[in-house]
Structure formats: C-alpha cells, structure tokens
C-alpha cells in the first residue's frame, strides 16, 4: 500500500491536506512550516513548485508563486527542500505544479528525483489523463501516485476515465474557477461530489475555495478529505508561521 493510500485506510478519519508554495515567503519558512502542519494534524502536505504562468490559480497563489520565483525557487530546489522535509516528517508529501517544469526537467529524471526526495505523489492541474500517459507510466513504475482532477463540468465519461487512471486519490475541484479563498462554498458542490461518489470507489478530496473550519466540516461529511491552500498562503505572508499551526489545528478539530 502506498503511503497515500494508507492515509485513507484509517476508518473514520477525514484527511486534511494543506498546500504551501515552496519558498514562500522563504525557504526557511517552508522547512519550518511543514513539520508544524504535520504536528497539528495534517495528513498529507502539497508542496507547490512555482510556475511563471499558473493559469489555474487565483491571485493569492499567483502572488506566492511569483514571489518564490523571484527568490530563485526552481524544481531542483524544491526537490532539495522535499528531501530535507522527508527527514523531519513521516506523512505523505506530494508536489503540485504545472506540466512544463516537469516536462522540461525530463519525465524520467523528475520521477527518479522525486523518489530520491521521498515524494509520494504528483498533482498537475494542466495535465488531463489524455496527455498524462507518458508521465503516468513512469510514475507507476516508481510507485509515485499521479493524482488526477475532476471538476463540476466533468461528464460521466470523464469521471470514469479519471477514476480508472488516478492513483492515491481523486482531486475534486469544488468550483468552476481558479484557486482562492471564498466566503461560501459553491451552491452545487454537494451535487457534484455525490455524482462522482456514485461512480467511483477511490478516496475523494475536495479543494478550491475551502478556507474555514466550518466549510471543511461540511465538505468532509461527503468527501474523504479536504484541501486548503490560499488561506494558508495568506496566513504565511508575514513570515510568522505560528498562525498557520493554529489554523490547521482548528481545521483538524472541525474534521474529527
């Protein structure tokens, strides 16, 4: 069983999956915040490798990405950081990035480097299953889970396709839109999650727009996990990571 799969084998526990951009606001902050997330109840951490053209991201993650890039954060540096984090935490670590940095690094070298750094999975929002075949084949050989996404616009045919191909879990994008904290959950998110649930047996984690404990709690009634990103990036802006620890703790309590 992969490290990610074992997260979802604990009955009753809902997975809490925070996202951070590597190198935002500093590399030191990343190295400190991940253990803090783990201590406060995170089950998996998404490490964002910044990309110059993050077209699935809203303003918050755009800003953290540009900031990190200005600080010289590269895929190689992210791999180095992941390796250091792997010595500090046991929970699964997954990279979230866009396809071009991975493609440019080289699919095989990148997956090998991920294994070396203790990375468990990959989330690449601009790589749908139709284009993911090559990366998928390599990742599978190296026991790295390539996690595909579904959106409210996904048809039954596409839900089945993603269910067949996704490993670890399926990332459900709660809204038609970009990443970003929102005041309320989208009107039809329950319809969407229920629709997917009827067709697939894999763990389902919901992300995009979840930013409060009460939202997380509501989502977790239907889903197996919640993904929280932009709100954490906002909290990290000052460089002081303590508020992030408190925030994660609050989410954990809401989920349990």
């Amino acid at each position, binding site marked *: 069983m992969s490290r990610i799969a074992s997260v979802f084998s604990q009955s009753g526990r809902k997975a809490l999956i925070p996202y951070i951009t590597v190198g935002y606001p500093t590399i030191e902050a990343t190295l400190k915040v991940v253990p803090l997330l783990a201590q406060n109840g995170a089950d998996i951490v998404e490490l964002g490798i910044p990309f110059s*053209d*993050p077209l699935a991201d809203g303003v918050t993650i755009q800003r953290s990405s540009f900031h990190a890039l200005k600080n010289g954060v590269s895929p190689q540096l992210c791999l180095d950081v992941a390796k250091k984090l792997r010595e500090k935490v046991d929970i699964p670590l997954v990279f979230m990035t866009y396809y071009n*940095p991975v493609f440019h690094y080289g699919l095989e070298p990148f997956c090998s480097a991920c294994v070396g750094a203790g990375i468990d999975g990959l989330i690449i929002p601009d790589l*749908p299953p139709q284009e993911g075949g090559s990366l998928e084949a390599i990742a599978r050989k190296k026991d790295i889970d390539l996690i595909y996404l579904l959106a409210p616009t*996904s048809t039954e045919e596409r839900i089945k396709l993603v269910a067949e191909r996704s490993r670890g879990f399926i990332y459900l994008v709660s809204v038609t839109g970009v990443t970003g904290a929102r005041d309320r959950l989208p009107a039809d998110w329950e319809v969407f999650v229920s629709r997917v649930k009827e067709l697939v047996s894999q763990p389902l984690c919901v992300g995009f727009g979840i930013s409060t404990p009460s939202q997380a709690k509501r989502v977790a009634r239907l889903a197996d996990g919640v993904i929280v990103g932009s709100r954490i990036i906002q909290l990290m802006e000052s460089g002081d990571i303590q508020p992030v620890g408190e925030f994660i703790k609050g989410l954990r309590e809401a989920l349990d």
Partner: protein
Amino acid sequence: MIPDARGYFGDYGGQFVPETLMPVLDELTEAYTKAKDDKDFWRQFETLSRDFSGRPTPLYFARGLTQHGGGARIFLKREDLAHTGAHKINNALGQGLLAKKMGKRRIIAETGAGQHGVATAAVCAMLGLDCIVYMGEEDVRRQSLNVFRMRLMGAEVRPVSSGSRTLKDAINEAIRDWVTNPDTYYLLGSVVGPAPYPAMVRDFQSVIGREAKEQILAQEKRLPDYIVACVGGGSNAIGIFYPFLDDKDVKLVGVEAAGRGIESGQHAAPLMAGTVGVLHGTKSYILQDDSGQIRETHSVSAGLDYPGVGPEHSYLKDSRRAQYVAVTDDQALESFQLLCQTEGIVPALESAHAIYHAAQMAKSLDKEQIIIINLSGRGDKDMDIVAKELGVEL
C-alpha cells in the same frame, strides 16, 4: 491526417488544460467539426467576408519595392486592407459565427497589439454578442488607440497586471475567466492554445492563401517561388502557407522577431532560439529558462511579443517544409520606412519583419522569380511607437 484526432501535428499540439475545460473543448470540437461540413455556415462566412471584411483582399505587385531590390518580383497580399486593418478579422468572424451557432452570448478574447481585440470587438458588435478583451497593462499603454477603438465598439477592455503584462499574461487571464465561466466562448486569436484552436484558426485564416493562389495564377500564370510571412503565434503565416503546403516548389519562410538580437536574449523567436515545452495548453517550441519557467520576451511589435508559437509551425520547422528566420527591431523599423517610401503603404510593425527579410532575399534572386509577402496588417496603430523609435515628437 494533420492534426490527428488528439490535436497533434506530429509531436506538437494537444490539450494541456485544467479538467474544467476538457468538456468545454470537447463541445467546441464537436461544434466546429459539424460547422466544417455545413455549407450554410461557410456561405455565411463567405458573404460576410466579402460584405463586412472587404474580401478578397488584392494581391498587389509592389513595383517600387521590386525596383529597389533589383531582383525578384515582389507581390503583397493586402491583408492591411481588410476591415479593422489586419488579417485578424478572418478568424474573429469565423469564430464569432461559430459562437453564435453554439448559442453563446458572452465572448472573451485576449489581445497583444490590439488587432485581434479590435477585430473581435467589431464582430461582436455586428453579431450582437457581449465582448470582454483581456490586454496586458503594458500593451494597453503602448496601443492606447486600439483600446479606444475596442471601447467604441462596445467591448470591455480589462487590463492585466500580472507577470510581464503583455500578451502571454492576457492569455493566462482569459483562460482563468474561461475556467470560471465555462459557458463563455473563448475567441482565441492565433493558431496557439489547445486543440481544436490551432487547426480551427488555421482553417479560417487559410482564406488568405486560397485567394493568393488564385490571384497569382490569374496574374502570372504560375505559382510563386517564395511566400514570406511574419510569425508571432503564427496565424497569418499559417493562413497563407496552408493552401501551398502540397506545392513543394513553393518555399515557405516564416519571420520571427529577433528584437534586440537573438544573442541579446531579448527577442521573441521560439522557433529560432527556443526549446520544446508546454504553454497555454499546447506543446510547441517555447522560450523558457533552465528550470522550465517561461521567459520574458521583447519585440518592438506587440503582436509578435509572445514566447510560444503555433504547434503546426513547430511541425513545419522539424519537417523542413517551412524555413524560419528572425529580423531585429531595427531592421523592421528600416523596412517599415522603406515600404512607406517605395509603395505609399504603411505596414504594421509585425508585417515589417516579413518585408525586411523578403526585400533582402529579393536582391540575390533573379528577376523571373516571384516572392509573395503576406502584408498582414496596416501600421496606423504603430505611429506612436515608430515616432518614438525615430526620435520624432508628435
């Protein structure tokens, strides 16, 4: 078949987009495939191309420019005379009609120089569709006249302040809007982006090459030896190249923007100096750094200032069916003035890149040979920039 069912031209193309858009692209592909075989659709396209856009555009023998070179005879395909001042109207009209057929009401577009934005705004006004144009802040500043034109025709222009604030960022923002509003029609302006855009935009633009072929055969009773066109995303070039692809004796030359020189790194020439990557949903040659980040580009011409290029051009480059070269800002400015003086025609700065290369080439060719330049647009929009570059205060 090119492209294949997955939207690939050889190794290039594809659909690298967020899941939200995959069903939307499927819907678009289906609608376009149907329209392609729909005689009524094309009849409407042809009628409006004639009565609204002013087609066919002339193929004009450039006597002055030919004499100046003293070599090959040069003809200009006068897309500068098309409505709104450039070839962009062909694609805007085709996709506008398709959007209407699909029952879409809200149209979004990106624009660099503003030519595609103006063409889209005009078509939307004519068809009664809502129009929002994303434009980089930097381009809003350097192409303020076009911003005003778009607004006059009822379009909402949204300045984009992220990244390099140019065309690339305008496309990012348009895609973000599209992901948020999947019922919207995205009227993409070049042969870039995910399938079916590269082939669809090519099909609408290939009216340029079909006309040029008919016109040169009527005027000269033979095909040209060379066709020269500038390449940013590459829609005017594909438009004139495509109907000649099977005519192996016709050499196709695409001219990219060398900006301040390829060696300077400040250019917009992915086919000349780029590597393969994925940008805006398609695999093609792009300009990127050592860690796969998209590089900032430079060209005096906003319409060529883009780090990617249409996947079909990458395919034509690798298969050597077309040849690609690059021309600097200074060379383009030089030929901009040359065309004004020898022909009484003010070209767009984009097109001036093609003129420079063709004029150079003509010198070493003999007088029997024929070059067609795709004069993709007119230069009225570039007056401020050219004046500034020449040190003239307006």
